[in-house]
């Protein structure tokens, strides 16, 4: 078939007409996995907020609001919750932005910068959540200590036989231990959840940094 021969001739003639891809570009193609890691960070953070808010939603019964009222937290607590969700939503937006940025990354250098940025965002996010947990616990414990009638009767009873300052110190120590345990669990939760993804990102980053600019 003459036409096919003509096609073949043309095909051969244009064999070297392609814009050549550089080694750097090939490396960056191989390391597009970063985009999937960052996508997972985004997905997990969204799942996480859904989990927390559904837990709050299903456990916030009449009892809960009564307790809040008793502790005089019924006005401040909803505000804190609202602010907390707003902050988390901002973080989710930042994760989304990182994901988008990594998706459209062209150069290795830009990819590396985005990895660093993503790691920083995750670090802040985990830090914020842990800080918020500590703050929440301390707040609830203080108000519980001040307003819970059970605690007050207990305090009154104990102070008859014991130095009240010592008792307060004891209570504070018990609270501190409880907070430490809970915060430890939360820290472990985040360590597991994001730690694996962060390590992969770091590995990816280290590989990328070996490419000479």
């Amino acid at each position: 078939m003459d036409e096919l021969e003509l096609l073949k001739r043309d095909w051969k003639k244009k064999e070297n007409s392609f814009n050549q891809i550089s080694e750097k570009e090939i490396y960056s193609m191989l390391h597009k996995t970063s985009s999937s890691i960052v996508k997972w960070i985004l997905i997990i953070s969204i799942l996480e907020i859904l989990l927390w808010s559904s837990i709050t939603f299903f456990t916030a019964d009449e009892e809960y609001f009564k307790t809040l009222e008793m502790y005089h937290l019924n006005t401040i607590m909803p505000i804190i919750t609202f602010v907390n969700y707003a902050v988390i939503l901002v973080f989710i937006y930042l994760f989304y932005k990182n994901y988008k940025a990594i998706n459209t990354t062209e150069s290795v250098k830009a990819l590396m910068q985005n990895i660093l940025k993503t790691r920083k965002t995750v670090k802040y996010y985990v830090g914020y959540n842990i800080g918020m947990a500590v703050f929440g616990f301390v707040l609830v414990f203080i108000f519980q200590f001040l307003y819970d009638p059970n605690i007050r009767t207990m305090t009154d009873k104990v102070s008859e036989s014991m130095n009240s300052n010592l008792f307060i110190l004891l209570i504070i120590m018990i609270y501190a231990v409880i907070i430490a345990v809970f915060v430890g669990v939360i820290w472990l939760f985040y360590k597991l959840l994001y730690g694996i993804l962060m390590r992969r990102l770091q590995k990816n980053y280290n590989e990328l940094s070996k490419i000479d600019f």
Partner: protein
Amino acid sequence: MRKSDEAQFVGLLKENQNIIHKICRLYTTDEDSHKDLFQEITIQLWKAYPNFRGDSKFTTWAYRVGLNTAITLYRKKKKTIDTIEFDSSFHKVKEDDYNYEEEEQLKLLYGAVNELNDIEKALVFLYLEDKDYTEISATLGISEVNARVKMNRVKGKLKKILNP
């Protein structure tokens, strides 16, 4: 181990990238999808690289993985014959060997190839690459006889498209 593998792979790929470019030229119609497919094939090659033992040539292996990717993994937009826009690299022809009549015919030819299905394109591609039937059958995983029969059918189909 992994590091040196990577460097080796990148080197091999850079050296043989025209194979991938050519597959992209055949399976895509614009520069963006050319880039997309190039990247997809690169990633698939890299994923499959641990299984590449070196008992076949890198190029033979790249043909196989590249075509498989183009055929099975890559889903491109539906195109119509009237709006074919070729890769800009198609038209980088020097002024002095410009032959209007031949150009017209080539345009029709590329248009006809573009109308073929993915498997048929793969056959045309291997034909254009001067592969013999042994290699074609090995690359596409079909018997030599089958490759011959299919190739003849493709030629017939092209003729029909060109001379309706």
